[in-house]
């Protein structure tokens, strides 16, 4: 197995763990954590392809990963703010109990 395949397999495993968590957990914060894990797995793919790709000196994959980290940080801030706001309305973070869209 080549080193790149090893990194890709780890990224695939992390992505699947994050997806499973996002689909099965009831707490909204843990669903966000699962989404963060999926984003991080994608970043690992970008860095691995940058390292083993034909032109690492062009920095394309690394720049993609850096901007992806910045966007993921913004996503985490907005997502957690939304969870806090919803908790103030419904007094729960259980997604199974959030079954109406009326505020």
């Amino acid at each position, binding site marked *: 197995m080549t080193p790149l395949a090893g990194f890709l397999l780890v990224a695939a495993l992390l992505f699947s763990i994050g997806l*499973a968590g996002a689909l099965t957990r009831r707490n909204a914060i843990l669903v966000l954590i699962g989404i963060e894990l999926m984003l991080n797995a994608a970043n690992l793919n970008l860095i691995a392809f940058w390292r083993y790709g034909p032109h690492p000196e062009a920095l394309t994959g690394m720049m993609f990963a850096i901007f992806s980290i910045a966007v993921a940080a913004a996503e985490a*801030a907005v997502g957690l703010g939304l969870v806090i706001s919803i908790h103030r309305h419904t007094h729960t*973070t259980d997604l199974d109990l959030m079954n109406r869209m009326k505020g």
Partner: protein
Amino acid sequence: MSLVFYLIAALTVAGGLAAMLLKNTVHCALALTVAFAGLALLYLDLDAQFTGFAQILVYVGAVAILVVFAILLTKGSETPKDGVFSKTWLAGLAVAAAVFAVFAWSILQSVSRLPQAAKVPAVTVQQIGVALIGRYVLPLEIVAVLLTVALIGAVIVAMHEKEGGAQ
């Protein structure tokens, strides 16, 4: 594949699994921090030092703290009595397993076509800075605006509203 890689990969995957399986939400956030740190180590193993330290600063430093704050503000650390998993957990697990099966199959099928071990790219932080200010200056500015808008938006969304109108 070196021993270092296997150790870091095991640490990262174990952190991710614990973050999704533990019952106490605060323990999940701590396990998530371990997974983020393991990913930073994987970036360092890939000779991407700048990205590795950016990962530590942004994820281990900021996002993990943000998650802990959100858990404490929403009393999310109380474990619900009727289980932490949704009623449709079996379907979610099946979807995730199917996705992993497809990924693993496609990676293992294409191993012979993937690029082999390349020489270590000599990239300095100066080169990254020049690229950020030169070729990637437009995305950099857009990310700056996005971060400002997102953080102001997050504060406004999470801000406490008094009865009878927003303050």
